[in-house]
């Protein structure tokens, strides 16, 4: 009962963010006198970009024929970039990680292929406006638990309902690869033998799951009686075994990555590697198997005491040089859901340590779009793509830069957020006290 009251209290406190979702774009907009960073092509200075009905119509200089009602916005000194994409987070599935009632990202059990992230994405989460304020327009919201966690969805950070916000679902089937090495940590209670046993059991389980999923797939397509009864779990695996839905395998250790790549190749699955802490050691395997990598955070400690201090800063550079497809995400943990706005700085650090700057920018825009299979709509500024873009006073990878306006599918997003409201509220306090102007 006590917990229930607490939950009610919290829910009422956090019920809805104060920002109002933007209406559909109802007139064409031209941004002019801006520097346009299409990401997919060369930078246009003194450029113009025209979008209408949520789509980019034209990019260039002095666009001659403007549709009727075009709103012309001149932005000298400003820059336009495609909205950034955070490719690995539980944003929308958690509000305050320490408060259990607000945690919705980990279903119980080890085999949950059927759970879908988008259905419990809370469009009124206070975390969402805070995140988009810094130019992050789209997130991949990922369930987290067990061996097979469920399917992720690409969510646009604006909308009245989760359905409004969904850009694509499902994006991938998320698998958390078993730990391959024995942990000797004092926090791990299981003996080395037990750990190995468990690992081997899980590896076997992964193969068995695919066998059964294939059997189910065959059974539902066979013209026979009696009809195969619906099984939600196997049903959700059908597109995986058909190779239509990629598996997003979360793996960090080098042995995990090697094993996962072998498994996906043997099982003929379409694999994306998520995490990839040690990916830089096995770029040949990744390249050979055509496995893209969502590098989870550059802002993390080196994996081993003897490793280079800049190991994680340089991982993107090494993948880039080895011609492995990659993008950069922030930490996907629940603690970091509130901090996805710092995504561009993860990429910037890679650039500080050698990755070309334009690659760093792509690694949070175009590359994640490609890896998530949404590049036909977002990730770069190209005619025909969504007008999901933002205006800033400089390079968004620089912390000092400010993002001024975000458009998602041409909709002008409310740039307010909880932080700005509280800032304004207490600035007013000090104004009343005469402490500031």
């Amino acid at each position, binding site marked *: 009962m006590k917990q229930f009251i607490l939950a009610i209290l919290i829910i009422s406190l956090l019920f809805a963010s104060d920002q109002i979702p933007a209406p559909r774009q109802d007139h064409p907009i031209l941004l002019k006198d801006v520097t346009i960073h299409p990401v997919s092509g060369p930078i246009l200075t003194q450029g113009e970009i025209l979008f209408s009905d949520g789509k980019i119509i034209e990019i260039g200089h002095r666009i001659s024929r403007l549709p009727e009602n075009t709103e012309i916005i001149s932005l000298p000194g400003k820059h336009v970039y495609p909205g950034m994409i955070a490719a690995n987070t539980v944003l929308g599935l958690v509000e305050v990680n*320490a408060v259990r009632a607000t945690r919705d990202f980990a279903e119980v059990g080890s085999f949950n292929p059927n759970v879908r992230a988008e259905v419990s994405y809370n469009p009124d989460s206070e975390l969402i406006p805070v995140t988009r304020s810094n130019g992050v327009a789209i997130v991949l919201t990922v369930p987290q638990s067990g061996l097979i966690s469920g399917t992720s969805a690409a969510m646009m950070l604006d909308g009245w309902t989760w359905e409004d916000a969904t850009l694509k679902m499902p994006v991938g089937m998320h698998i958390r690869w078993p730990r391959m090495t024995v942990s000797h940590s004092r926090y791990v209670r299981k003996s080395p033998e037990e750990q190995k046993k468990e690992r081997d059991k899980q590896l076997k389980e992964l193969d068995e799951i695919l066998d059964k999923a294939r059997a189910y797939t065959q059974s539902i397509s066979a013209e026979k009686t009696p009809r195969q009864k619906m099984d939600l779990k196997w049903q959700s695996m059908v597109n995986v075994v058909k190779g239509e839905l990629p598996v997003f395998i979360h793996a960090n250790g080098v*042995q995990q990555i090697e094993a996962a790549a072998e498994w996906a190749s043997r099982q003929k699955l379409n694999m994306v590697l998520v995490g990839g802490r040690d990916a830089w050691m096995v770029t040949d395997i990744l390249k050979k198997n055509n496995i893209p990598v969502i590098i989870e955070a550059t802002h993390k400690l080196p994996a081993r005491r003897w490793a*280079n201090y800049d190991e994680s800063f340089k991982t993107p550079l090494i993948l880039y040089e080895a011609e492995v497809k990659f993008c950069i995400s922030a930490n996907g943990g629940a603690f970091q859901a509130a901090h996805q706005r710092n995504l561009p700085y993860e990429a910037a650090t890679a650039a*500080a340590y050698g990755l070309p700057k334009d690659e760093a920018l792509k690694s949070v825009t175009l590359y994640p779009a490609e890896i998530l299979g949404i590049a036909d709509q977002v990730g770069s500024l190209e005619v025909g793509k969504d007008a999901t873009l933002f205006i800033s006073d400089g390079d968004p990878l620089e912390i000092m*830069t400010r993002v001024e306006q975000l458009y998602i599918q041409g909709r002008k997003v409310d740039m307010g957020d909880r932080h700005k409201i509280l800032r304004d509220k207490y600035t007013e306090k*000090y104004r009343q006290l005469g402490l500031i102007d």
Partner: protein
Amino acid sequence: MKTLSIIFLVSISAAQVKPVDGLHDNTPRVFVLENGKIITQPGQVIDGGIIVIRNGIIEAVGKKVFVPADAYKIDISGKTVYPGFIESYWKREDKKPSSLNFGKEKKKVKPAPVTNHWNERVHPEYRLINDFQPKEKELETLRSLGFTVAQVVHNKGIFRGQSALIHLGNWHPESVIAENGPAQIMAFEHGSWGDKGYPNSLMGTIALMRQTFYDAQWNHNARTYYNRNRDKTESPDLDRALETLSAVMKSKLPFCFETNQELAALRVQKIANEFDLNFWLKGNGYEYRRLNEIKKMNTFVIVPLDYPETPDVDSWEDALDYDLEQLRHWDQAPDNAARMIAAGIDIALTTSDLKKRKQFHNSLLRSIERGLSKDDALAALTTIPAKKLGLTNLGKVDKGYTANLVITDGDYFEKKSKVTEVWIQGKRYMIKEEPVHDVAGKWDITISGGLNLNATLELIQKDNKVSGKLVVDSTKIKLKDVENEAHRFAFTFPGKDLDLEGIVRLSGTLQNKSITGSGIAPDGSEIKWTASWTGTLEDPDENKKEESKKESSSELTPLFPEGAYGFAEQPEQAKKILIKNATLWTSGSAGILKNVDMFIRNGIIEKIGKNLKVSGSDVYVIDATGKHVTPGLIDAHNHSSAFAINEGTQSVTAEVRIYDVLNSDDIAIYRQLAGGLTIVNILHGSANAIGGQNAVIKLRWGQTPEGILFKEAPPGIKFALGENVKQSNWGDDNTTRYPQTRMGVEQIIRDAFAAATDYAEALGLAGFEKTFSNLPVRKNLELDALVEILQGKRMVHCHSYRQDEILMLTRIAEDYGFTIGVFQHVLEGYKVADRIAEHGAGASTFTDWWSYKFEVIDAIPFNGTIMNEVGVLTSFNSDSNELARRMGKEAAKAVKYGGVSQEEALKFVTINPAKQLGIDPYVGSLEKGKHGDFVIWSDNPLSSYSYCEQTWIEGTLYFSTERDAEMRKHISDERNMLIQKILVSDDKGGEKSMKPNGDSHNHFYSCTEGGVH
């Protein structure tokens, strides 16, 4: 191994009080050991000597000595005699301690005597002998290694009690040499996170040790005072622990501290210095890493030979998880004893810490093979411990010494040698039953009767097991069912190769290398046979094997600290440094200067200006054209570089000190240097309202804990408020510790200061009204720290989130007349910035963390800049050993959220935290007279694209990308070399391989370290 002890007599009559049970036993006790090689003491050998033993005492030793007529002669030709070895630290690893139980083992125990110390880990008065019941098997194991005497120590507690000295013969009253032995045994024992008993951290243990030593002194004084003033004084509590301890301290008896790694030895020294203790160390095998420091202690170290298992590096992936430090330890550990001896440290060797005690001989032989001298090893087993432990008449084979001897079948310090017997107090203990007959070799055998045959027998004998072949011309027939016992020899063999269907059985009697016997052929007919020994069998493989197995001492020398990125030699200060043509972010009144030079002499900034002229060839010139130079960055809130962070057992633990547990070897130091950080405020965690004392360190990588301390920094202490303190997120098991609400937190803190005030008044400190007290006032480390706060000498760093609690604490402080130093985190500081400014506290905040727990849902990234604008001295901190590497860029968030200038933003991580820590007279800005702590950046330090190229502290280069690149190359080469060495070596670590450290070091430190979020 089967051992057999032959007891020549049951009791020693002289001191016998007990009535004789049955008949008197008067077996003669006079022996002569003849023809042995006698090592009387290290370096002294008598070949073919004689030892006369009478009633447990050595009566004579020498080449030619008088042999008394009543002595029973024992021929030990071919054997070597050593003085009986001394086990200097026999700690029995029994799981259930006899009369004391701690922690989770706790079951229903009898209530402790009322005179015991309040803390169950403090029992210096404990007499181990009362509960000591050695198992015969344990004694046999020690004897089989040559040990005849041991110092036995208790295995539980912090103050564990006096050690005892015993003989390792059959357990009898006369085995006890001293029940109140030479040393008080000490250990840094503590519970772990989640245990509710104090202490549950190393910090708490050290604080408890110190308080207990003070209490012992006080107890003595208080009792003395009471005895003189019984008419007007209450009696102080009777505490046997404190009484014992005070006596041990006064008599200057040694305290023997157990240590688990090299830095622990340095910790011991600090405690010993504080209380002027005579101390020994029970070592750990890592001493070689801090040899100079340990040498300077001029103490006695009891060293285990616990060498690491071999790393499993068969696959390159698995090899990754072994730290360089582990690989290097594998290579160097067996040289530890020899290096200590070479450094001139007095050591004794012990079997302690070995997973199996029997590994001792093998480990010792490895060290000998690597160059430990046999005499030194012998001394460490005999004369040195005898002297240190006060074992007069032991440790040598000499007239008048107790007849404790080790007899081996060869040189004890060579392979294949074995202890065959030991003598203890004149009693003989056979270690190994010698085979009745050694039948190994070639025999001519003649068989007649039912089978006629002349052939050769080839026999191999290992201990009592015999195997062999019957060689008939070129046919070799394997023998079966070979028996060699009770002077009889028997075997069978299949007749197939001799065209007989069935088995031939032969048996006979052995005497003087010949056998005569009979048998039965497969057809049932009788056989007669004889055999005689003709010579030994050659084993061609064995010698070769020995050759290849030879170990040699490690070619490595220690790094500072040991492992990757350690320095082979400590970097030295450049006496004169001239930085030319830099963009200098002074963080001082001069602002940002372009194209200027800075001159640093002896680690101090001497001059800043354009085109400085400094001549001399000894000037270290840095061309900083195009580079940005800033003060070394400062992190006002960090939890790395310490072996403990939270002593979370009590709500007030002001007595514990981070200073006591600094870990100068933490790789976090190097990584933070690589991000331009030079100074870090290491704070106690936030598990309780009044936590422990902080330590401000300079990141002088490679130095000792004492060496990294920023000595000029004023002392501070950690307070905490809110969810962590009231255990909101600790789970349902933690709902009873006071306080559980913010209301209670306020009361706990008030209560602490009320107690501190009473204490200060009792002491009559300046500024407090003296109150009358009868007994001498007990020194209280906890209250000392609180009084220092009241006196304004100790700065409060308070972990805080919500505005109500921030306001509350300023009110308490003002009620008690002091000012809070810094509100840490202070995520709702922006709501009460006017109050913080008015109170005069600083604020050190996260830039933009929020929403990870309920009390931070109102945290905003504008917090820092709003507080700054309203007039609060504000800094950004990391609270994370990862973020601490990127503080320059973190400062840029002050520009982003709040629009402060870049110059001002950098101050959030330079001069502002310096002011908050009270170290701004020395550091925090680049100005004349300040420390030469600076960072060279590739570009604007606030830019996301810049990186740190060099980090200097007081004119010493601690990090540079250039040297880092060299180190990487070296690390990679050395790993490869060591892995190759491991791969070609024999696996000497036993069946198990070394546990890799893996990513276990990779602990993300934050103030809730230990499990609270």
